[in-house]
């Protein structure tokens, strides 16, 4: 039992008291004011659909992948969107390996609600063949470091990953027009997802004394706070979801004030994400241009084009196989990798 006590994170009475008293004079331990958001950086991986978000010490990674599957029976012409969270003990010793804990489930559900219930992703455009094949989009959120307010960071990571994700284009072929041909990225430019709007999660922490409120709580503040509210809004000020799961009671006026602040922050964050995505897109576009320089030595070019032809014929062979499910699925898997 002592061993167990030695491995958990400690919090002193002094810190607890100081965080609360500092908030009374509108100060926070990291030098922010109560309604300042932490610096946000969004980075992208080499592949499409991977994003890394850093907010202070919080570090979250989002990956988006897609797969051709059969649609749900009640929505035959809609693709699906699912969110998986991974809280590895690496990010915080209090996360236990194995089954996702309560906080992991809540985070996944709140991000899911913000994205899905507000219909941010156009799922109808993910339909390939109604009732037979639709794209299932899967978002994996990995918590790499827990510096507080994982929810907002995870939400931003999910959005940034969705915005840079490209799914392979596919068309219908075969005799009856029922076969799905998935075009490899070399043949046809992969397609981005259609996002109607960006629901941004903004979290507020409520403290027991004197109704203090702070936006974007750090790990330490989360240990002190009495309650939390996550509001998901887009840049237009539409409220997509709110989650205040119990905890400290709050006056109605405070909630309305929080919503107003959140809508401003949502605008700022949207701006930042868009800027990051734009620079990523131009970067990848530039890289593509560089990949095929005009002055390639003849022999190399020849080998290359031969190879390319070979690949192409291979791809054609694959693509003309009629539609049995395994083939298509296997092919998309290879594209995922």
């Amino acid at each position, binding site marked *: 039992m002592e061993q167990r006590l030695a491995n958990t994170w400690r919090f002193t009475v002094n810190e607890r008291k100081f965080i609360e008293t500092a908030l009374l004079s509108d100060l926070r331990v990291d030098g922010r004011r109560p309604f300042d958001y932490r610096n946000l950086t969004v980075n992208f991986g080499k592949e499409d659909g991977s994003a890394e978000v850093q907010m202070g010490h919080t570090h979250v990674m989002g990956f988006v992948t897609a797969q051709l599957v059969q649609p749900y029976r009640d929505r035959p012409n809609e693709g699906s969107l699912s969110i998986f969270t991974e809280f590895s003990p690496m990010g915080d010793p209090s996360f236990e390996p194995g089954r996702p804990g*309560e906080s992991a489930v809540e985070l996944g559900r709140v991000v899911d609600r913000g994205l899905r*219930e507000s219909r941010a992703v156009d799922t109808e455009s993910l339909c390939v063949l109604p009732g037979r094949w639709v794209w299932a989009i899967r978002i994996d959120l990995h918590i790499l470091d827990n510096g507080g307010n994982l929810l907002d960071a995870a939400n931003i990571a999910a959005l940034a990953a969705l915005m840079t994700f490209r799914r392979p284009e596919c068309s219908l072929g075969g005799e009856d027009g029922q076969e799905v041909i998935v075009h490899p990225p070399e043949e046809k430019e992969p397609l981005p997802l259609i996002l109607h709007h960006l629901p941004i999660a903004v979290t507020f922490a409520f403290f027991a004394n004197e109704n203090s409120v702070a936006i974007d709580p750090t790990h330490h503040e989360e240990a002190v706070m009495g309650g939390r509210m996550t509001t998901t809004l887009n840049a237009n000020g539409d*409220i997509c979801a709110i989650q*205040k*799961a*119990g*905890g400290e*009671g709050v006056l*109605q006026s405070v909630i309305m004030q929080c919503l107003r602040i959140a809508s401003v922050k949502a605008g700022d964050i949207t701006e930042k994400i868009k800027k990051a995505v734009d620079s990523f897109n131009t970067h990848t576009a530039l890289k593509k241009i560089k990949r095929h320089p005009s002055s390639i030595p003849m022999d190399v070019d020849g080998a290359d084009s031969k190879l390319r032809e070979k690949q192409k014929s291979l791809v054609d062979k694959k693509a003309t196989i009629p539609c049995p499910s395994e083939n298509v699925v296997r092919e998309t898997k290879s594209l995922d990798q």
Partner: protein
Amino acid sequence: MEFVSPEGLRLDGRRPTEMRQIRAELGAVAKADGSAVFEMGNTKVVAAVYGPREVQNRSQQLSDQALVRCEYSMANFSTGDRMRKPKGDRRSTEISLVIRQTMEACIMTHLMPRSQIDIFVQVLQADGGTRSACINAATLALADAGIPMHDLVTSCSAGYLNSTPLLDLNYVEDSARGPDVTVGILPKLDKVTLLQRISCRLCMTDTTGEYKGIRISTRWINYNEG
């Protein structure tokens, strides 16, 4: 689909800001220290409270406050299509967490250090607003068990369909995929403790209408309690 008729009546004949009939019964589970059955129209929920009692898992014991645990489940026969659902799916894990945190906020946990309070909530019939019904039932069961609390949490849902705000949605209205909100308030302190909004693009609307309805429900509960 039309959810509000031109005469201003809903599918089940209610007016937009009218609640369904509420019925509460205390002491429904003999073995439990406190229990309650709560009905909102056709939604029926039973809650049982055990505790404060000795902490079962000593490693979870808190030296300055009581440990509150909650388990939410839905009976297999509670919904229209009867199917066996795996225990501990994401939805019920989340609702358990929500109920636990809501109750934790109003129980005076610091009065019962090194003890544990278990709340079990089961949905017997689901017809929309199960979340609210569960919270109301849990509050009553806690009160029945004589656990010290700051206030009785009361909860109700509301939605927005056919450009009309509707109070206390039933299943049909709930599954219309319109915006809806579940509110839990501490009526005496006039504070909001639970707020969940699931919606597609709803502009900031005033929630006073919803609060009015919840006040009514509070009065009802107080009445039943007395």
